[in-house]
């Protein structure tokens, strides 16, 4: 049973008379509980795809069908590349942000927020302000904020790319643990192929101008996975080759 079904998605926008197509004829299906990584060159439209799903951007053509788990409270929640916490709110109030749309009482919201904060291991900073925390901590809080709304699908837009390598790896493992624990469907956009292969059940590569689905590769390596595993490296190499070929073809169009 597919949780997300996208057929023939196209998005174009007009700017001073010029029509720019970002996506065209994109097909993508995601099953419940799947962890799918979306990779591709910069600007191919990965973030745009997430925005369409989150209803932050309107498609020009195609159909998008989202069938979330009826037991979940919200269909989707998003984690951005920069944590985007509200600087004037303390950490706990930030995590509770999405819950203010519900009919929960203040005490219930606090409790849910604390649970979500604890699940990313940051219960002790509940009373601090965002500016007092490190980048890695802020991203974990952004993740807690998304999890607190109990979504059936997690959309993540290059959430770890702004962090240093050790923090990134720690957060990757935390994400895997949390998504398995709560049985989430995850759509993870990244430009780091190794990260994609390490995390995902399936890697979808976008390419072309305008962007469309170029390849869908299953990662049949059992969990828990080891970084640098030979099988994973081989898969990553293949995907990288494909994307490099695309980039080279695009470069032939360069004038300089």
């Amino acid at each position: 049973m597919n949780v997300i079904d996208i057929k023939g998605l196209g998005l174009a926008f007009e700017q001073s008379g010029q029509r720019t197509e970002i996506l065209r004829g994109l097909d993508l299906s995601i099953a419940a509980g799947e962890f799918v990584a979306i990779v591709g060159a910069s600007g191919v439209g990965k973030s745009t795809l997430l925005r369409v799903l989150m209803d932050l951007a309107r498609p020009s053509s195609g159909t998008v069908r989202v069938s979330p788990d009826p037991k979940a409270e919200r269909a989707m929640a998003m984690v951005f590349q920069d944590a985007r916490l509200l600087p004037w709110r303390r950490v706990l109030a930030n995590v509770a942000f999405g819950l203010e749309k519900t009919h929960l009482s203040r005490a219930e919201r606090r409790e849910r927020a604390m649970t979500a904060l604890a699940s990313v291991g940051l219960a002790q900073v509940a009373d601090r302000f965002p500016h007092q925390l490190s980048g890695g901590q802020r991203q974990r809080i952004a993740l807690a904020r998304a999890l607190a709304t109990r979504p059936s699908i997690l959309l993540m837009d290059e959430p770890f790319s702004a962090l240093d390598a050790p923090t990134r790896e720690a957060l990757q493992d935390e994400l895997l643990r949390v998504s398995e624990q709560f049985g989430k469907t995850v759509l993870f956009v990244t430009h780091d192929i190794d990260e994609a292969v390490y995390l995902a059940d399936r890697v979808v590569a976008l390419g072309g101008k305008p962007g469309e689905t170029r390849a869908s590769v299953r990662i049949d390596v059992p969990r828990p996975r080891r970084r640098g595993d030979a099988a994973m490296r081989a898969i990553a190499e293949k995907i990288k080759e494909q994307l490099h070929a695309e980039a080279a073809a695009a470069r032939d169009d360069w004038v300089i």
Partner: protein
Amino acid sequence: MKFSQHMLAGLGLAVFLIVWELVPTLGLVGPNILPTPSQLPAAFMRELRSGAWLASVAASLGHYLMGLVVGGFAGVALGVATGMSRRLEAALSWVVRVLRPIPGLAWIPFAILWFGVEQTAAVFIIAIGVFWIVFFASQGAIRGVDRELIEVADAFGFRAWHEKLTKVLLPAATPGILVGLRTALGQAWMAVVAAELFGVHGLGQRMNQASSLLATDIVVVYMLTMAALYGLMDAGFIALQSRLMAWKA
């Protein structure tokens, strides 16, 4: 380091007071042109005992604060509204361009016509000055809110304009709005004196009376009173501001 800076400042002030004391004493200017600092405490006590000082301060503070409140509220409300709605801003833009350059004092004839030589007229003049400062500060502050934070509100389901206003726009714009209010705090005092010159009770009126009687020492007493009151307001505002901005880095 701090101590020596204080010493220098104290020295500077002392020299200033000494020179000031000497200039009229040595007959460099006529006795009624400039009072000496030593005359001030006596003048102040006279004003205090006659009740004039307290009455003037109360009256001026009264319409100063009223003008701040009225002008401040109107400025924030309209500034936020035009900051949020491009259409509203466009609709009002030429009206603003016509009315904005008119100095607050130029409104005095209408103030007297509409409200008489009453407190309300002074409040009106002060409010106009406050309004324009706060209006532009609020509009700019709303416009300057980080788009990415607004997108977070959208992503978590807060799509309605009033939700975005309370959850993101107002808190994010508060620093800018406060800067506008603080500036208005100072400008409003200038308007107080001018607004009272035409006869409304208060510091300005008392100063005017005193100067027409050549009681220049009383004039200086009130000048210093105004400086002290403004300093008090500003200090109070800064305290409020730092409480509200505790979240800033």
